């Protein structure tokens, strides 16, 4: 059989084993639930942003109803007014939560009662309504016909011109950036650990030696990475599809076309990041002497991924800062930061070939070092190896006597 045939065979076994396991079903279910929850819950919260209910207390305030509604409409604030007979009733309703605010107006005073605080926009709307009524009243009392003064009272429209307008899809892009980084962090850590565990299992169960009699270490390694990578990709695809469907159902966020265009870029980032991390995780898995040590040896990679993910929040706040550019060139951090920056649309064209080059070289170097560590350490049956020891090993048997046997001559 040719070399790729063996690799495919190894990958196929990995996929079959994983699909038969219960863990993958649970993990897929959890991922789907998290994604669906992440998509629908903000939508449901937004859907509850009902208008602010303002009670107008007494005749004077109730006369303001048309003015309040007009002003609110102009300010694009949602206000629902209702009439309340007296202050005591109004207070009771505000306290019980039936009303958000109660407005009472005197000859030269006005008061709005709220439970805790009042939204500044709502406050401005109410203030303007009261002012307007007060002005009309004052004009009427002075005998000045309102019609004559009215043009002077018409507000001069103030046009706002943004010199650097935010992209219309900024919210969607920010969400996409966080989602991309989070997904990258979780999936790389998850599938990386799966690779390390798989390698450690083959080593500690001594299956590796039987395998290596038929298969080269590189075939075994690449088959394992490929199999687990494809399983992971399938799992991500299911989660992504669930997210898109959930979004369509609850109309949570309108996904702008610009985000869809980013999908191939995300896919590429995942493949590059997974390759980089999976080989490193595999080599780490080969160092252990017991399955329980996997967690310890893979800790640094998990930390790199976590730091990369956390930095994304700083990247969102300062997408164009120099240090952001610098850290996004560091290979272990690039895996999480770059997809986020692509989502935000802040990757300069000149950065792309540099990113590709750095990632390419890192992957090449990682595969080389990892393959060597893997091949050396896989059938070493002594205590857990350090990276340095594993690189220096020439043979693969322990430098100790074979264990003695009861049937010794």
């Amino acid at each position, binding site marked *: *059989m040719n070399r790729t045939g*063996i690799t495919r*065979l190894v990958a196929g*076994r990995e996929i*079959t*084993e994983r699909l038969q*396991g219960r863990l993958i079903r649970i993990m897929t279910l959890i991922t789907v639930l998290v994604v669906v929850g992440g998509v629908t819950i903000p939508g449901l919260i937004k859907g509850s942003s009902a208008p602010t209910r303002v009670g107008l207390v007494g005749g004077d305030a109730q006369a303001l109803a048309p003015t309040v509604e007009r002003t609110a409409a102009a300010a694009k604030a949602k206000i629902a007014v209702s009439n309340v007979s007296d202050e005591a009733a109004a207070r009771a309703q505000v306290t019980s939560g039936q009303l958000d605010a109660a407005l009472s107006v005197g000859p030269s005073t006005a008061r709005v009662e709220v439970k805790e605080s009042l939204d500044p926009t709502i406050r401005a709307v109410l203030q303007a309504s009261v002012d307007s009524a007060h002005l009309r009243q004052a004009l009427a009392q002075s005998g000045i016909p309102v019609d004559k003064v009215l043009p002077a009272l018409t507000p001069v429209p103030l046009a706002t011109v943004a010199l650097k307008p935010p992209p219309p899809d900024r919210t969607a892009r920010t969400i996409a950036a966080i989602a991309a980084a989070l997904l990258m962090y979780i999936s790389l850590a998850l599938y990386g650990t799966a690779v390390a565990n798989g390698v450690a299992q*083959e080593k500690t*169960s*001594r*299956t*590796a*030696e*039987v*395998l*290596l*009699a*038929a*298969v*080269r270490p590189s075939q075994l390694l690449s088959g394992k990475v490929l199999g687990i990578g494809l399983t992971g990709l399938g799992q991500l695809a299911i989660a992504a599809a669930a997210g898109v469907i959930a979004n369509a159902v609850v109309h949570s966020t309108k996904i702008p076309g610009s985000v869809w265009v980013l999908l191939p870029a995300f896919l590429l980032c995942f493949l590059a990041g997974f390759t980089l991390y999976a080989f490193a995780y595999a080599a780490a898995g080969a160092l252990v002497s017991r399955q329980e040590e996997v967690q310890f040896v893979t800790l640094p990679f998990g930390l790199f991924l976590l730091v990369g993910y956390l930095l994304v929040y700083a990247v969102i706040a300062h997408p164009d800062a120099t240090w952001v550019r610098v850290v996004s060139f560091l290979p272990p951090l690039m895996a999480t930061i770059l997809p986020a920056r692509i989502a935000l649309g802040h990757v300069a064209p000149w950065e792309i070939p540099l990113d590709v080059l750095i990632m390419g070289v890192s992957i090449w170097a990682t595969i080389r070092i990892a393959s060597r560590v893997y091949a050396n350490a896989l*059938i070493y*049956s002594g205590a857990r190896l350090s990276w340095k020891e594993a690189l220096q090993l*020439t*043979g*693969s*048997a*322990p*430098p100790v*006597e*074979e*264990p*003695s*046997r009861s*049937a*010794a*001559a």
Partner: protein
Amino acid sequence: METGELEVLDLHHRFGDLVALDGVSFGVAAGEIVGLVGRNGAGKTTAMRSVMGILRPDRGAVKWSGHPIGEDDRVRFGYMPEERGLYPQMRLLEQVAYFARLHGFDTAAADGAARTWLERLGLGERTSDKLVALSHGNQQRVQLAVALVHGPDLLVLDEPFAGLDPEAVDALSRVLFEQATAGAAVLFSSHQLELVERLCRRVVIVESGRVLADGTLAELRRRLPAELRVKVDAPPDWARSLKGARIASADEDGVLLVVDPGTDPQIILRAAQAAGPVEHFGFETAGLVDLYREMVSR
């Protein structure tokens, strides 16, 4: 050079300061069963791993049918390592068939061969069980099925008999005989010397990374002083002045003489007859256990 012959040529290997192989050479011909014998740490496993290409020796070569071993040769080898190991969660049929496929079988052939071997080894009823569900002895059988499933031309078995019950030992012995009869070259290591003696025509004794002896039992015996038991109806003094032989013990069963190689036994017989009527005259056959002790202690 015959086809299907394994040649191990002057292997050297060290692990740090420890010399594991110090010029090991031996061969296994097609149809031959060779036993590799030696104490723990003598270099048996390292030599076998070198043959399987799992370990690259510092120096020396391993050849198959006269040429350096390539990947096409190696898929025709079957291996059972000293440290047994298979996928615990994989079902027997899937597992054995998987290894057949790694050795170049297509899906249908792999399935068929896996089923055949599992049935032959008495696991036909358990093909859909997971490996972990099996007893230690049955797991050993699966390990053997994995080594044999692709009908290898060379079988390398590191301590295949360790931990087997007598029934399983017989079953494995039969399988090894069958494989050799079918033309496979078989190399195995063992501490159970009486087993090696029963199974092998040829034995390789290794000690401290070197080959101490390599040959058939008869050849090995010739290299050692022979033991001759002579019973004469006379005191043992007749034997004291013999050249090329000395008394190892003397009792009512006669004298036991250690005869140097090259000494003519007829001279001893004549000396005995001169002393009195000879009741018994015969060489004691040294077993592999004796040969091994003698060789290693020298």
